[in-house]
């Protein structure tokens, strides 16, 4: 288990992590979600004892990382796939890691095999593609067969095949009962990988909830509708009880209605459509909305529309 309590870190004037508290439980993938610069990497460095907190503490398996008797057997981490000497072979890199924690030397070949790097094990890590480097980083994290794993943006820069591989791998680790924390700034990615989400913005906790709850609340879907006779189309949709408004770029946006129904309304009215597409609100939009409300609440200001406050309540639950 990972426990973060009141964790705070300042870099000069920047408050990178601000009184952050959350826990990561075993047996599921916990997604660590936040926009760029929200403090995910900093939090992970603090949890791993690489940076020092300005206040608060982070515990892995009940103790600060620096006090672990068997660091690599307890925690595996991939923060940056390039933290490898470019002139060292993949095997040599894993060998020194294994040796430092008295892990059986046979683990090196096992993890190389697990991540599919056996064929290139004796090549310089500097010549690896990003995907291969990422696999080497995962191999290093798995070396001590740890129960706790942290991955910082593990799919960043990977091709679709690599993304699917990492996603499956990470889910497999959680299915084995391990405690897995994976960061990302992409909600769609986290929606596919994580069971639980810890969401932060500007270093502060915004929500810890199940992924399903958060996705429902954070990313409102809308349907974009366009056609030659837009005014008639809008009128027909309103008559049918569809909430519709201008999209801002000359088309219509309908919310809260399945696409199929909109298509049927248009067909019944004998109106042609040139576009009917589903738009899922981006994480960035959701963040603007949710963090904006955070500020309003703390400042004691009025809440927004009923729709948004419902979203926030659900996200906080």
């Amino acid at each position, binding site marked *: *288990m990972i426990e973060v309590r009141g964790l705070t870190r300042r870099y000069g004037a920047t408050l990178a992590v601000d009184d952050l508290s959350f826990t990561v439980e*075993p047996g599921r993938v916990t997604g660590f979600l936040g926009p760029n610069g929200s403090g995910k990497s900093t939090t992970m*460095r603090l949890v*791993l*004892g*690489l*940076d*020092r907190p300005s206040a608060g503490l982070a515990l892995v*398996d009940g103790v600060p*990382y*620096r*006090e*672990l*008797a*068997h*660091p*690599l*057997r*307890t*925690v595996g*981490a991939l*923060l*940056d796939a*390039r*933290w*490898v*000497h*470019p*002139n*060292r*072979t993949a095997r*040599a890199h894993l*060998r*020194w*890691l294994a*040796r*430092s*924690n*008295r892990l059986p030397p046979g683990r090196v070949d096992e993890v190389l095999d697990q991540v599919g790097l056996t064929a290139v094990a004796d090549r310089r890590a500097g010549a690896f593609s990003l995907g291969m480097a990422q696999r080497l980083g995962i191999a*290093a994290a798995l070396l001590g*067969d*740890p*129960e706790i794993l942290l991955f910082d943006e593990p799919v960043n820069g990977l091709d679709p095949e690599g993304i699917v591989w990492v996603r499956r791998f990470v889910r497999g680790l959680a299915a084995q009962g391990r405690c897995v924390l994976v960061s990302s700034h992409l909600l769609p990615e986290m929606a596919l990988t994580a069971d639980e989400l810890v969401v932060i913005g500007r270093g502060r906790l915004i929500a810890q909830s199940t992924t399903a709850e958060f996705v429902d609340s954070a990313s409102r879907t809308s349907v974009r509708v366009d056609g030659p006779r837009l005014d008639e189309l809008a009128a027909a949709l309103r008559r049918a009880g569809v909430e519709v408004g201008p999209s801002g770029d000359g088309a219509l946006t309908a919310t809260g209605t399945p696409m199929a129904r909109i298509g049927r309304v248009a067909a019944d009215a004998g109106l042609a459509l040139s576009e009917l597409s589903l738009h899922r609100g981006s994480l960035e939009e959701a963040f603007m909305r949710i963090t904006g409300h955070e500020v309003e609440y703390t400042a004691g200001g009025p809440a927004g529309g009923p729709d948004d406050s419902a979203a926030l309540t659900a996200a906080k639950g």
Partner: protein
Amino acid sequence: MSVAAGSTTIARPGFAAAVAAERIKLTGIRSPWWCAGAAVAVTAGLGAIVSVATRYEGGPLTVATTQLVHSAGMAVVMVMAALAITTEHSTGTIRTTYLAVPRRGVALGAKAVVVAAVAAAVGLAGAFGSWGLSAALVPDVDLALHGAVEWRQVAGVGAVNLLAAVIALAVGILVRHTAGAVALVLVWGLVAEQLIGLLPGVGPALTPWLPFQAGKYFVTADGTATGLLGSPWAALGYLTAVAAGLLAVAVAVARRRDA
């Protein structure tokens, strides 16, 4: 958690494991081998050239003469020692190191042990190389190691290289950047101390307290010499204290800093 329960039966990986890991790290890439080879070649080659030149210019050729230019090899060793830590910072490997060995005193201490051992071995190989080549090239001069003084003059290069490497490593830990650390170490070891020694008035008084001058004195002093620090062994003790103190400061700083 099962790992915690299981690990109680497994011995905690200690200093020896960290040393073994650092050894694999240092020998697993080519540049330290090049540095070591270059240091041995430079020390032995230049030393032999100096011996031959001294002989043909009619100067007094002694065992100490064969080690006059040991600082050339020492410079290469110091570069290697500084690089051992600064490349970890430039590549980010230092974070991987601290993840594997979070007790930074252990991680850096282990690195110091490995770097020091290589430096000493390189120093001994270079020094005995220079002495052996000199003896072979100038057979008419008696360069035999008759006693403790001659043995100190040759084997002492190993000790001085070891301590110089620890100093360079400590500077590397503190400075972190390769260019800065290498420049600082070379300027200090090869230039600054000589210039301080040349300062009118204070120069001669300061010289015994300059660490690399103390090292040089330890290697080159003959049986009768008495430096301001007394015996050559006192000079070596002083250099040891400087190296140990600097490493302790560097480790203390590294423990407080962000990796």
